[in-house]
């Protein structure tokens, strides 16, 4: 899928990936790949400015943890505000996709009403 198209929805994609639980950057990328059936393949670094921005907006919280490998990593989680924002964005997206399906769907005759 086009990178530019994805970037426009990156915030929603990240919030959705974190809806299954807290995760660090690499795990979020893996979750996005897995849940999109490998269709979403962004430059991996793109996710970090977005994570920092979403945290600044109060939609995510983060904390440092030490992984089993001994490396320190930043784990992100949805805040209550982030969960609400995701629900709102999901509703808007569903309305939008239903409208597009209505326009492009096979039942459309192409004749004006």
């Amino acid at each position, binding site marked *: 899928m086009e990178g530019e198209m994805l*970037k426009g929805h*990156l915030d929603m994609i990240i919030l959705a990936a974190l809806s299954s639980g807290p995760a*660090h*950057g*690499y795990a979020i990328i893996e979750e996005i790949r897995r849940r999109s059936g490998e269709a979403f393949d962004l*430059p*991996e*670094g*793109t996710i*970090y*400015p*977005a994570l*920092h*921005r979403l945290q*600044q*907006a109060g939609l995510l919280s983060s904390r440092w943890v030490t*992984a089993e*490998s001994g*490396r*320190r*990593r*930043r784990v992100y989680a949805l805040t209550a505000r982030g969960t609400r924002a995701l629900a709102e964005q999901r509703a808007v997206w569903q309305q939008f996709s239903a409208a597009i399906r209505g326009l492009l769907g096979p039942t459309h005759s192409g004749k004006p009403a």
Partner: protein
Amino acid sequence: MIAAYMKRLEESLAHDPGLSARVLQEVRDHLEEALAAEQLDDPCAAERRVVERFGDPCELAAQFAPVSLARCARRAGVAIALATVAILVMMKARVFWFAIVQWRLSEDVQTVANLVITVDRYAFWLAACIGAASLLYIARLHTPARLHADFQKHLRRAAGLFILATVPLGVSVMSDLALTVLQLRTVLGLAAVVPITSIAIEIGCIAVIAFMVGNAARRLARSELLQPR
């Protein structure tokens, strides 16, 4: 190859050392985990794939610019608010102390003191109002994914508000200093430690604020330099 990539990223984020330290640690962890998941039959090729998938470091640093600038602006706004509260507490503490030790200004300086008190009062409340407005302005500012002209315009306005709040706050502290000197002109001793300490704290606050606001204003005014070239 990963080490060279980290070096380039560090150079690109050098404008914000606090953010840079956190980002570098996150990116290092990411690249090492990605490398561990790679086929390591050819380590150099594996590192190259990992770095390529991560993206260009200059582009990444450019994407961090709005985050960094918004963080800088928020810090300056919060610092002004905290300094305003600290200065108010010091002023009240000094007035309270003067009442306890029953120090009064002598008649010969009363007229000058009244003028300085008026300047002090108006300057302080003007600074408090502008400081609160700047904090609100920054709090309502949405950080975009990329730097754009509209966001930069808001940042410049925020920098202007910071300066407008700092100047009267400085005038207020200088007025406090003048009043304290008038007060301590004739009476010195152990009891003078409280007003001297409180005025020193006020001067410290305004010095820190002037430094932070100057730094933030320079960065916010020159934000276009952080865009990728």
